[in-house]
């Protein structure tokens, strides 16, 4: 499946996590990212999709290409109407030192991508946006 235009994918079951990975892999590869960068992007997408499934049950993943000042890139948005993140700063620190894979989803994704924005409201939901630029 070739996706150089934008698109969206509804997440509602555990098996949607691997589907999300495939969609993102195809998209990032089409845009010309290196293998290692594709791996980073797909891994971040896997983390953030799993977060949606586990904390909110369902949500949306959207992707689109970026073009700014002669640079190309991609943006992924992860949106849910789940419980929200009580303390975003803390969530971004969490799990860094344990190294066991617990709580690494959000801070890990931030390290793998070039930019991350988080908007979350308790009881309403969360929107996480990540971007990566072609070097």
């Amino acid at each position: 499946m070739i996706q150089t235009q934008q698109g969206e994918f509804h997440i509602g079951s555990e098996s949607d996590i691997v589907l999300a990975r495939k969609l993102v892999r195809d998209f990032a590869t089409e845009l010309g990212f290196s293998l290692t960068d594709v791996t980073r992007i797909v891994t971040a997408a896997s983390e953030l999709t799993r977060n949606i499934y586990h904390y909110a049950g369902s949500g949306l993943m959207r992707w689109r290409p970026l073009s700014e000042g002669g640079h190309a890139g991609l943006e992924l948005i992860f949106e849910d109407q789940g419980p929200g993140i009580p303390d975003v700063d803390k969530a971004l620190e969490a799990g860094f030192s344990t190294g066991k894979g617990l709580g690494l989803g959000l801070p890990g994704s931030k390290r793998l991508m070039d930019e991350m924005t988080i908007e979350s409201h308790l009881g309403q939901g969360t929107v996480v946006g990540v971007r990566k630029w072609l070097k």
Partner: protein
Amino acid sequence: MPKPAKPAKRAPKSAGTPLGSEESYRQMVDSVKDYAIIMLDPSGRVASWNQGAERIKGYRASEIIGKDFSCFYTADAVARGLPERELELAAKEGRFEDEGWRVRKDGSQFWANAIISALRDVNGALRGYSKVTRDLTERKQAEERIQQQSKEIMELSTPVMQVWQGVVAAPLIGTLDSQRTQQFMERLLTRVVETNSPVALVDIMGVPTIDTQTAQHLIETISAVRLLGAQVVLTGVRPAIAQTLVHLGIDLSDIITRSSLAAGIQVALDILNLQVVGKNAGR
């Protein structure tokens, strides 16, 4: 050079316009071609325009006055609320400076340095904003070219060599920032996998000083190589570097280090021999 447009309601030039008068000031601002100097009303609509603005942004005064200044920003910046935020900050701090991509009338983008200043009357009420913008696209492109070139030079100067069957060596020169680390790890790990080498010698003789950042990046590289199933031997560790590493509290207890590349190669061969011995012992 586009013909300068006459801004609306401009008093005719007369031979007797005194210097320092508001009129001569307006003439001066208008004639500046290298800077876009414009005024915005309190809600961000364009109230005045100069020749520099026409040159840099492409609009003639008659077609832009009254329009909201967010049309100069990229769709992305508008979606993120950047224009409103800049006005807010200018109103709060008095002035706000920013660099970023802006959009011309024809849709092309340029790298701008802009300073927005809040204009207030004697009572402190906000009357509007002044915005001075410079087109720095050429400078930015030159900077990026230099970065790209130095990146290429660094890649050429730090190859990963296979020194023996099963041993690769990579000399590190200079310090390791985030980007260099990525490139270095990429080259080193790819080579380890390609050559199926259980030992990687990382020589840091060419690293003049080691700060926390470089040390962390070095540790990160070593961790990644371990995940592959290979071992790192750190060579060229000079006494000063060893001292710094200890002072930084970096734990190197499970990394093999040697002061010279030659000693490192010896260690590598010992490791490989042990693997052979181990294999034979199992039979």
